[in-house]
């Protein structure tokens, strides 16, 4: 099978249109960022608290909000997370002015008090307490009377039991009643009775909690910027050295910057949050975009080595055509992977995948329409007037000495 066979498209003919379109996209993105008063930074960069909870039954967002209002947290966002039937909720609390407050603990306490029953207050909440708390409680109560009997210490004995109970919770997602916990295989009847009497199952399980201080947020932002800036500089140097030509390095870096800017702009339009995962995606995209550009440049360099006197534009056009099939195929294959990630990878990888989907499309376009044209424009501006104006759409691929091969896939 072949998608492209010896295409002969005069890509450079539309270079000014392409540059116009690129600028338009960049400006739209910048405008979106400007209108939204900056990027929507996630807590990684802005600081603050983010808590993901899984509830036993469908949570009422308004009710949760009312409960949390009592905490005076300031700006608080509550939204559903993942698929609705999973009953998961994401709570965000802004950076607090007063330091030293344990926001995660405060939020969880308020919710537990607001949603749980009073009778359960003294019992251990198996849904929010972890292995060690359960082990400590069991060790103190010692329902199986292992203390003083020799053999293993009570702490070890109950530690293992607690571990099994919590592992069962991870498997089930959440305990709906103490009986669920007592149903953990291998428990002695004493432990089961103890659990039924002394354990409660609160309304939610803590999936994750993140709290980033303002200092760290600023640090991460700076580090991310550094990472992007230095990796681009590194690539510029390598490409400029490898191709013995500054315009090539420059073209690659402009194309990469172009992709990054447009992708960031589009993420702003899609109202996606800007966090560390997006930075990782942007950096991947930088790698991909450069990869694409280098493949085209490599072919240009190879074609320039032939002794034939041809205009640079002709050579570039031919190179793009020759690599077109690989460009499209690779982008397509990568796209398959990223699309799988987008649909199956879950909430965390979702934004990562979206960033790459945008990035791959833009990156493929830019290695054809941005990187190479910039080399041409640069050389024209710096007065290499040897370049004759290009005769349009002349067959750029010289007919091979042999008759054109038949459709290859037919051969066997």
């Amino acid at each position: 099978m072949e998608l492209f066979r010896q295409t002969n498209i005069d890509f450079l003919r539309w270079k000014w249109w392409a540059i116009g379109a690129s600028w338009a996209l960049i400006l739209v993105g910048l405008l979106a960022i400007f209108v939204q008063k900056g990027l929507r930074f996630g807590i990684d960069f802005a600081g603050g608290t983010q808590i993901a909870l899984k509830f036993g039954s469908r949570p009422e967002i308004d009710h949760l909000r009312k409960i949390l209002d009592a905490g005076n947290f300031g700006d608080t966002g509550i939204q559903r997370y993942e698929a609705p039937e999973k009953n998961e909720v994401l709570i965000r609390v802004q950076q607090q002015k007063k330091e030293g407050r344990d926001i995660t603990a405060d939020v969880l306490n308020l919710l537990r008090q607001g949603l749980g029953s009073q009778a359960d207050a003294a019992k251990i909440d198996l849904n929010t307490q972890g292995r060690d708390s359960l082990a400590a409680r069991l060790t103190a109560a010692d329902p199986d009377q292992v203390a003083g009997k020799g053999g293993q210490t009570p702490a070890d004995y109950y530690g293992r039991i607690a571990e099994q109970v919590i592992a069962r919770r991870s498997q089930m997602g959440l305990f709906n009643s103490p009986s669920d916990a007592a149903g953990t295989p291998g428990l002695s009847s004493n432990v089961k009775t103890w659990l039924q009497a002394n354990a409660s199952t609160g309304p939610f399980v803590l999936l994750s909690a993140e709290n980033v201080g303002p200092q760290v947020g600023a640090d991460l932002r700076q580090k991310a910027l550094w990472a992007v800036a230095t990796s681009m500089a590194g690539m510029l140097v390598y490409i400029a050295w490898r191709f013995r030509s500054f315009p090539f390095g420059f073209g690659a870096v402009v194309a990469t910057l172009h992709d990054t800017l447009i992708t960031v702009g589009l993420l702003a339009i899609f109202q996606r949050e800007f966090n560390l995962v997006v930075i990782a995606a942007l950096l991947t995209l930088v790698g991909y975009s450069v990869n694409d550009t280098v493949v085209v440049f490599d072919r240009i360099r190879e074609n320039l080595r032939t002794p034939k006197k041809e205009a640079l534009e002709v050579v570039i056009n031919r190179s793009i055509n020759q690599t077109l099939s690989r460009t499209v195929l690779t982008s397509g294959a990568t796209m398959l992977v990223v699309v799988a990630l987008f649909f199956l990878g879950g909430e965390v990888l979702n934004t990562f995948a979206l960033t790459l989907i945008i990035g791959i499309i833009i990156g493929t376009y830019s290695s054809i329409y941005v990187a190479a044209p910039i080399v041409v424009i640069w050389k024209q501006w710096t007065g290499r007037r040897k370049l004759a104006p290009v005769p349009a759409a002349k067959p750029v691929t010289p007919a091979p000495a042999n008759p054109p091969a038949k459709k290859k896939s037919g051969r066997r």
Partner: protein
Amino acid sequence: MGKRLRWRVLLILLVVAGLVAGYVATGYSHAQKEWIGSGMPPFSDALKKGIKLGLDLRGGIHLVLQVNTADAIKAERDDAVEQLQSQARDGGLTLGAVEYPSEAAFTVGVTPQTDEKKLDEIVKRWLPDWNVGSAGGKWTFALKDQRRRETADNAVSQAVETIRNRVDEFGVAEPLIAREGAERILVQLPGIDDPKRVKDLIKSTAFLELKLVEQGPTTDKAALLAPYSGQVPPQFELVEEKAQSGQRQPGWYLVKKAAVITGRDLKNARPSRGQFGSSSVTFFLTASGAEKFSAATGANVGKFLAIILDHRVQSAPRIHERISDTGQITGNFTPEEANDLALVLRAGALPAGLTYLEERTVGPSLGLDSIRKGITASIAGALLVFIAVVVYYRRAGWNAVLALLLNAVLLLGAMSLFNATLTLPGIAGFILTIGMAVDSNVLIFERIREELRGGRAPKTAIENGFSKAFATIIDTHITVIISAIFLFQFGTGPVKGFAVTLIIGLLISVFTAVFVSHTVFEIEYGRKQHIDALSI
């Protein structure tokens, strides 16, 4: 098979066998640690545990703490003031009021009658780390920069040690406690899902002092100070009671400033049962501590002794008789609290306060979910790519599929050998590596097709295709590796995990795409003298 070809096949088999064996061996060593039963853990466990999972995948707590080194410097300053005053007293000098303009400096009032020469000798002898100046009846002491840096540095290293002791006592498997930069400490505790408890445990300074009570407790601070005309006398200090739940207002104690014993005199501490079945902590003193304690309690029978933890009075029992080497701390403890207090007392006090800069907790169920989804997505993506490649390149496509599979296996093996940690972004890096590996194959196949189109014989086309694509593949891989190295250098946690996977994966991708694919082509077509056509 030619001799050269045979060597190449051997090399490939060696690399594959080495990495697979490395993976299985690492898996066994990891599984062994958690294996409770006798004998070897099952093979399936070893397969699952070959790669260390990051906190985001296995669940756990990630903390970044800032050590408030100013606390340690302040303590150094207070020691110096103490030293200066006691030496001056011994030398018969009277010093004026002490003022504290900053945490690393203090001034002392010096009257004209004072023998300045003698004072100077004392300072030279006992306070060598301080720069001294005098002006307007005051001597100003400033901690020397070098000493200040050392103090801060020691405080951080000591805090790392203390936290490590506490975490070890807590019993966490494979904890990571590392210094990050000048004043930060990174703590990663896999498998722990009790953020509040761990945070309190790490952060509590656990500074224990036992001091004799002069007056109190009372909620009325003014009444307490009334006999001293409203001023706290120099040998005493005011300490607040620890707020108990249900109590309206905590009371105040007036206690002797000099502690009878401190946490440093402790030999051991363990949770115990108090009088009414409530939880308490019993402590045991070192020989020198017991000596001090027995003297002080013997001389003060009938008085109250305040047990002060982190500058709050925990309880103040009456001294019934001389106590020598053991005591009990009571209070409204839950069993967990008593457990943790005993733990931090055993592990030692922190030299300075800590502030949490960053904390991330991932529950075990979220980690499970992420792994499941990440793996599903990876397998689905890989399958799609395999189908596309085989449809497009026919028989040569299978060659690419083999290279990709090998790539995945080798990457897993290499990550396990380097003891690299797989994180969620790492899975993404893994997927992207596969993308780059596909690209290398596509580049080669397209080149071969072009050569065929140009009328070359199949064998020459393969050779030319590989050699021409080689430069491009090297270029693309090096460029991306360069960017990944910068990511690793300047990135943080998750970005680093991504970069590591990418770098290892790209190196392997060069090997599989260029070396292995080429060898497979040669095995397929090399023996034949003449090939009519390629399925590509």
